[in-house]
């Protein structure tokens, strides 16, 4: 720190401008975030930058400059420095931190893993044909530990196999072959570590929204409202049909169950009596066919 302070006194012009630029971006946006950009190729960052342009501004800067810029700002903004790590970029937006998180998650895509990198989870090669004709690649696959053979004139993977366990380094040979097989074990994209919004720092655990939960909450809320309206007989355009149907069904139930002689339920009463008669008749006929008349014998 002491050394840094020492340097501050001799800050070159371009660094001062960079710091000013960061401060200005923070002040001109509602929300800013710290994102990890580890393992993302420069070309991909350019593409993401373009994709985000309507929602957020992405700025890659040196950590030391970011830190100095943040320290010059008020409120709890300097606390954001604890999310600075290697390969950190800043992102600025006028959307909510939740929206920012969602948009950044969408930048994540499967990517090839490099030789020597640690597998984030088990890397599995699935059994099945490849697009390669027989050739040297067969030997290359085999020597990388992938069980390949020739099948129907094509190179094929003989069996599904875990070729690298989670937490282990991926050998260079294997990494090359995985790329050839278009197996992309990494999910790479902007990784939001924290977002600052009006004095509050949001971490990803809070920002990750389960939309299906909201969906089911809405369903439940709508159901609650419908139940309440119908059960209290509150008529609205959404409930009047159900209320009428309910009243009618209850009336019909009462008419039939209490045997009220009303033209509205006579059909049902007659049908009910007939079915009861048939049911009793079949019991009687089971014992003695002569107990019932011909019509009732089956």
């Amino acid at each position, binding site marked *: 720190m002491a050394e840094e302070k020492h340097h501050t006194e001799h800050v070159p012009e371009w660094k001062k401008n960079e710091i000013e630029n960061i401060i200005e971006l923070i002040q001109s946006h509602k929300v800013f975030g710290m994102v990890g950009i580890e393992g993302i190729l420069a070309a991909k960052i350019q593409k993401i930058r373009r994709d985000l342009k309507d929602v957020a501004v992405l700025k890659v800067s040196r950590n030391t400059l970011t830190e100095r810029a943040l320290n010059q700002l008020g409120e709890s903004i300097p606390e954001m420095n604890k999310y600075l790590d290697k390969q950190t970029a800043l992102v600025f937006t006028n959307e909510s931190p939740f929206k920012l998180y969602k948009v950044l998650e969408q930048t994540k895509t499967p990517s090839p893993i490099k030789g020597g990198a640690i597998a984030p989870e088990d890397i599995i090669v699935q059994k099945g044909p490849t697009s390669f004709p027989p050739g040297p690649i067969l030997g290359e696959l085999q020597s990388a530990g992938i069980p390949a053979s020739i099948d129907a004139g094509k190179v094929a993977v003989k069996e599904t196999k875990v070729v690298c366990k989670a937490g282990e380094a991926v050998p260079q040979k294997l990494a090359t072959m995985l790329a050839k097989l278009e197996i992309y074990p990494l999910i790479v994209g902007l990784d939001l570590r924290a977002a600052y919004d009006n004095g509050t720092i949001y971490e990803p655990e809070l920002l990750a929204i389960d939309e299906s939960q909201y969906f089911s909450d809405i369903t439940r809320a709508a159901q609650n409202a419908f139940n309440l309206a119908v059960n209290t007989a509150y008529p609205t355009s959404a409930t009047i049909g159900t209320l009428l149907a309910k009243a009618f069904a209850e009336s019909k139930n009462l008419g039939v169950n209490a045997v009220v*002689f009303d*033209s509205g339920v*006579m*059909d*049902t*009463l*007659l*049908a009910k009596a*007939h079915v*009861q008669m048939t049911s009793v008749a079949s019991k009687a006929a089971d014992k003695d066919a002569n107990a019932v008349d011909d019509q009732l014998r089956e």
Partner: protein
Amino acid sequence: MEYIYAALLLHNAGKAITEDAITAVLQAAGIEVNDARVKALVAALEGVDIEEAIAKAAFAAPAAAAAPA
């Protein structure tokens, strides 16, 4: 349901469903007859096609047999 049974009994035997006939059947069964209900029954059956009402039940019955419950 005894009033309905009486009506269907008469109908099945090809007899007219009148207040007197229903009363007679119910009384023969030892049932104390409520005149208003007899009147209401006969009135409610006016214009009802009993065969059709029963036919609907016939539809219901086989369906019921098919039901898993």
